Structure formats: structure tokens, C-alpha cells
């Protein structure tokens, strides 16, 4: 409807929103690399980066600068266009998911009601899963285009890991969708604001979702792609400079986005517990607060991701597959059935 009327203000509003969200995602991802190193250091009684700027906070800039100035190497035997497409695809798919996430409620600004969501589509959850599964292509293309046997093996390994855990992830979510009765992400948040967070009803579902999110982001204990010493690195073995940077950066963006998705699906999104946000009205500062709350929740998840990374050892490949297919998928199915029975008993 909006587009038919060709509402320029609507376009402008969305452009600004996209710019803000993409910038936020990039900055968060950038500083995740710093946080990762700092958290690793404190968990291991070290100091971490402390040279670039006060407390080393300029470290991400220094790293970025270094990546830009490193030599670009494209192997002779690689298929050049695909080789370049791989990291691009990784970044694109990582950022695309942010389009359907409700980053806050609707705010009233400059005489217009602005929804802090780029696209409030009916099939939000399906869109997220669709885009996330496109990430497999970046891994496969990256591994294939390198024309290196080890890269290809690693790509196959990574792709099968992602596909296996995506199944369990989707199944764990079905129970949530049964409770909410909508695939629209804003509806899921609204339902949680009205009825309490989904984590209260779906703790097992959340646990499964969380473990799958770890695997999807290639984080420890599922980081076979990063196993440099043991498995000859991963699908990005032949990549250098900023192209490798893109792959690694995309993983951090993925981590941020999946943290936000988890906060949205299970922890009430931008909802502050025991606070009736609706009573505050729709001022611009309410939007800012709700956005910050969502960010805070996401940051807590990011911390959890990192805490796990510096605690748990890496899975062996067969253990990884066993956990996915024999552990998580049956558990998700049982969770689904129990939820269905309870919902039936409650006659909802």
C-alpha cells in the first residue's frame, strides 16, 4: 500500500533505519572481536589487548587497518569470481536477517508513526531461517572456489554441520510458534509482552535453540571451521587479507544477529520485565530505551557465547553429528509433542 502511494517519507525512514541498523551490527561485530579477546584474557587471568588506545579500545581499528593493508592473494587455480563471491555472500546473508527483527516498538517522531522494524512481514521467522540457510552457500562457494582439497572437505564439513543443526533449530522453534500462533516476529514480541516471555514456557526449546545457534555461528564447541592445527583450518584456508576478514567478520555479525533473534524469540525482544512500556506512550526516547534493552539482552548472549568458547573444548566431528541428529532433533520433537498436548489440554 505504501509503495503504491510512493510515500517518499516512508522510503527515507526505512533508509535511515537500514543505515542505523547495519551500522549498529557492524560496530557491535567489530567490538565483539575486541570483547572476545578481552573476555578470553580475563577468563584466563591475562590482560588482553591494552596497547592501542586506552584499555586497547582502538584495537579493532588497528586490526581492520592491518587487514586492509595485507596482500590480496587469489590462488591461480581458483575460480576467481566465485572466490570473491564467497566472502561477499557471507556478509550479505549475515546482515540480511536484521531486516525482520523488531528493534523497538512504534515511535512518534516528526509527526509520523515510525515502526523500528525494517520489514514487518507475515513470514518473519521463515525469512530468518531462509536467509540463515543461505549462509551455507557462502561456505560451500568459499571452499569450492579455493580449488583446494582441504578447503573443500572443510566446506562440506561446515555445510553439513549447519544443515544438521538448522533442522533441530527449526523444530525447537515450532513449539514457540504453536504457543504464539504467528510467524510474524512483531506478533511474537507482542505476545510475550502480554503473556510473559517464552523462556518461561519453553526452557528446553530455548536450550536446543541456543545450542543450535552456537553451531550455526561456528562457535566453540562447534568451531571445526577454525581448527587450524587439527583440521588444516577451514573453508577459508586459501583466503587472505580483507576477504578472510569478511568471513570472520560475518561470523561475528551472525553471532550478534542470532543473539538478537534469541532475545526476540525467547526473552521478550525489547520488552523490559515488570514495566508497562505502553503506558509511557510512543515518544522517541521510549524507542531509544527499548532499542537499548534489546541491545543489552543481545550483549548478554554474546557474552555467554564467548564464555562458552573459552570454557568448552571442541567437539569431535562424529560427536557433533551425534548430538545434532540423535540428541537435539529427538529432544525438539518431544518438546513439540509435549507442547501440543498441553495446548490441547488447555483448549487453546
Amino acid at each position, binding site marked *: 500500500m505504501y509503495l503504491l502511494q510512493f510515500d517518499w517519507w516512508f522510503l527515507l525512514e526505512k533508509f535511515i533505519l537500514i543505515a542505523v541498523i547495519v551500522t549498529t551490527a557492524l560496530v557491535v561485530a567489530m567490538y565483539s572481536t575486541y570483547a572476545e579477546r578481552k573476555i578470553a584474557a580475563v577468563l584466563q*587471568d*591475562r*590482560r588482553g589487548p591494552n596497547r592501542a588506545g586506552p584499555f586497547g579500545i582502538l584495537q579493532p581499528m588497528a586490526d581492520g587497518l592491518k587487514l586492509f593493508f595485507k596482500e590480496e592473494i587469489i590462488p591461480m587455480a581458483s575460480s576467481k569470481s566465485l572466490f570473491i563471491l564467497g566472502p561477499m555472500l557471507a556478509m550479505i546473508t549475515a546482515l540480511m536477517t536484521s531486516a525482520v527483527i523488531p528493534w523497538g516498538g512504534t515511535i512518534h517522531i516528526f509527526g509520523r508513526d515510525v515502526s523500528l522494524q525494517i520489514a514487518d512481514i507475515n513470514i518473519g521467522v521463515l525469512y530468518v531461517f531462509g536467509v540463515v540457510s543461505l549462509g551455507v552457500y557462502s561456505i560451500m562457494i568459499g571452499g569450492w572456489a579455493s580449488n583446494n582439497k582441504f578447503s573443500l572437505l572443510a566446506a562440506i564439513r561446515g555445510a553439513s554441520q549447519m544443515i544438521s543443526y538448522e533442522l533441530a533449530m527449526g523444530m525447537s522453534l515450532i513449539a514457540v510458534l504453536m504457543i504464539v500462533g504467528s510467524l510474524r516476529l512483531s506478533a511474537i514480541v507482542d505476545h510475550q509482552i502480554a503473556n510473559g516471555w517464552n523462556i518461561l514456557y519453553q526452557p528446553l526449546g530455548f536450550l536446543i535453540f541456543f545450542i543450535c545457534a552456537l553451531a550455526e555461528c561456528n562457535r566453540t564447541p562447534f568451531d571445526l571451521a577454525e581448527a587450524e592445527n587439527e583440521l588444516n583450518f577451514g573453508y577459508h584456508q586459501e583466503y587472505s587479507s580483507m576477504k578472510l576478514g569478511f568471513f570472520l567478520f560475518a561470523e561475528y555479525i551472525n553471532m550478534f544477529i542470532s543473539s538478537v533473534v534469541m532475545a526476540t524469540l525467547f526473552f521478550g525482544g525489547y520488552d523490559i520485565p515488570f514495566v508497562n512500556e505502553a503506558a509511557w506512550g510512543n515518544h522517541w526516547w521510549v524507542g531509544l530505551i527499548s532499542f537499548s534493552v534489546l541491545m543489552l539482552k543481545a550483549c548478554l548472549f554474546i557474552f555467554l557465547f564467548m*564464555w*562458552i568458547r573459552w*570454557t568448552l573444548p571442541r567437539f569431535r566431528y562424529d560427536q557433533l553429528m551425534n548430538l545434532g541428529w540423535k540428541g537435539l532433533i529427538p529432544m525438539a520433537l518431544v518438546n513439540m509433542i509435549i507442547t501440543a498436548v498441553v495446548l490441547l489440554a488447555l483448549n487453546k
Partner: protein
Amino acid sequence: MTIWEKMYLPAIAKGMGITFSHMFKKKPTINYPEVTRPFSAVFRGVHILNRDEEGRERCTACGLCAVACPAEAITMEAAERQKGEEGLYREEKYAAKYEINMLRCIFCGLCEEACPKDAIYLSQTFAPANYARKGFIYGKDDLLIPNPKTEPEAYAKAKGTIGKEIK
């Protein structure tokens, strides 16, 4: 394994608790070079050619250090003190050239023990870094301690923490 153990989750939670508790522990890391670690009194670092309290070089180029050196790292050339140089050198003979090849030196301290004039000793500084191999051949410029009369601060710094007890 019992079913509780097979679930792994309690063990994982325990492990996570252990790493989390490390966040609040004191870090043993020393922020080098802002903070340097105190060495023990017997630590053997980079050599220093000593001066006496009036700032005169103690070395008389007798060559005993070079003879004592098991790595044959020390070479020197002697020269005679001229008139008017009494303020520079303590005795009639002095080392015109004194070189230690730090790539060969094993910091055993035998030169220090061999020296009858208390002219060479091993200091508490230890970070010889260089870009080229020839940079590791330390001449008199690198080894000679600053003059205590004209540069007392640099002299004290070069003396370092020698003799101080470890905390």
C-alpha cells in the same frame, strides 16, 4: 556413566563456573615494559663496564675476562694512557676497543669473576633486541656505564636494581 553424567550439562555448568570465577582473580601478568619484574640479586643480565666513583674507567685491558670466557665472546685492544687522560682512565693501560658478541655470550658470569679490577659486571637489564646480527656485537659505547659525576641519573638507572632484594 549414570544418566546424570551422560547429560553432560551439570559438568558443563561446573566448568563454566570455574572459568567465570577466574574473571575476579588477580592477574599474574606484568605489564612490561611499564612495569619490570624485580630480579633476584644473583641475576645475570647484560654486561656493564664499570667506572670508579670519580668517573674513570676501571678496565685495564688485562684480558683475563677474555681468557675466562668459555664462549670466546670478548675481544679487546689495549692502549696506553696519554698525559692529560688521567681523569678518563684509572690506570696506565686501558681498553681502546672492548667488544662482547652477545650472540655468543652465555651469561655465565665468569668474566665478572675473573676481573681483578671490578671493571665488568653483569647488570639486571636483559633485553638486547636488534634488527641485524652485527647489532649484537656490543662495543664500548653500549657497555660503558654513564659517568656518575656528569650523568648521575643515567648512572643510577644503569646500575639498576643490583643488590636490591626481591620482594
